[in-house]
């Protein structure tokens, strides 16, 4: 009697206890990364879990509710999803302009690089620009936050003076919390006194 009840309860759990059966099939495919790096995606459904961390690794959730890992081919991806992949916006173009120590003046080399930035902005159909200021580790965190933002603001002025037409320029300062070249504290490093420009 007890055994029968147990069986009944177990059957009830299997049939009704898990997540409701899906109404639609679901597919996930990891594509080769643009910079070669694949951090991966974790696909989860209730207690089922599939980690996809190689190019063309795929998961499929069927109408039976089973989540299975599989492998897709580039041809299959092109055929089924090529149109969607083609709609992706172009990757952001990245430039770094450098400043002379402690101030907001560009180095001579970076003044020359500026024209590449302007060309990239003019080439994009709907350009928007992200300016991220950085400092080296000389000076306090707070003053470096201010300085990094000042540098980014300075680049904004330079771009506007050059007559670019951009609907939005986002200006931000990372101070010394994201060193482009790792150093200890209080180290003068010209390559950390930059403004990263993302043209999108």
């Amino acid at each position, binding site marked *: 009697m007890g055994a029968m009840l147990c069986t009944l309860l177990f059957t009830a759990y299997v049939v009704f206890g898990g997540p409701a059966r899906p109404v639609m099939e*679901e*597919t996930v495919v990891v594509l080769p990364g643009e910079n070669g790096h694949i*951090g991966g995606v*974790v696909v989860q*459904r209730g207690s089922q879990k599939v980690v996809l961390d190689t190019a063309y690794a795929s998961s499929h959730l069927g109408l039976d509710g089973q989540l299975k890992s599989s492998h897709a081919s580039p041809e299959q991806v092109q055929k089924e999803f090529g149109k*969607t992949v*083609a*709609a992706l916006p172009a990757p952001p173009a990245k430039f770094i302009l450098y400043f002379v120590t402690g101030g907001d003046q560009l180095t001579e080399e970076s003044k020359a690089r500026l024209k590449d930035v302007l060309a990239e902005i003019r080439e994009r159909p709907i350009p928007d620009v992200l300016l991220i200021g950085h400092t080296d580790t000389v000076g306090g965190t707070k003053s470096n*936050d201010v300085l990094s933002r000042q540098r980014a603001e300075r680049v904004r002025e330079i771009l506007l003076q050059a007559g670019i037409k951009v609907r939005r320029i986002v200006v931000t300062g990372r101070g010394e919390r994201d060193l482009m070249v790792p150093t200890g504290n209080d180290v003068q490093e010209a390559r950390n006194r930059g403004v990263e420009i993302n043209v999108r």
Partner: protein
Amino acid sequence: MRGAMALAGLALTVAAFNAAAEDAGQIKTAQGRVEIVRGGQHIAAVPGAYVRQSDSIVTGKDGTVGVTLADNSRLSIGPNTVMSLDKYAFDTTTYKGRMDASLKKGTMVVISGKLVKQTPGSMRIHTPASIMGVRGTKFIVHVGEPAS
């Protein structure tokens, strides 16, 4: 009365200011029928239009759209798709934040950006039957048509 009007004016100014700050991303490519649904209103999703948290993007059978988000994450959405950007927050100084999007049906491609690089797992894509936690990559999610 005058005080109330001044207050209303202030509220309006603040709202206008916040509206700009709320933009999560910008539409860079669009083809065919694509709409942004914001608070029940349908807005044409033309290149240059901004996308905000809580917006849905809906495409017709010939529609595709590409969006670049504030943290350099990029999305594209294929034909016959309904996707909503449930949550989007990105702090440009700390790079902290989170993104939750739901693909109700159709196809989307995601390339993660600064958000996930700073905090792996801070981007999640929800489908009707599962959840994708993003550790940093380019991937496709597809939800098929309901079985009839």
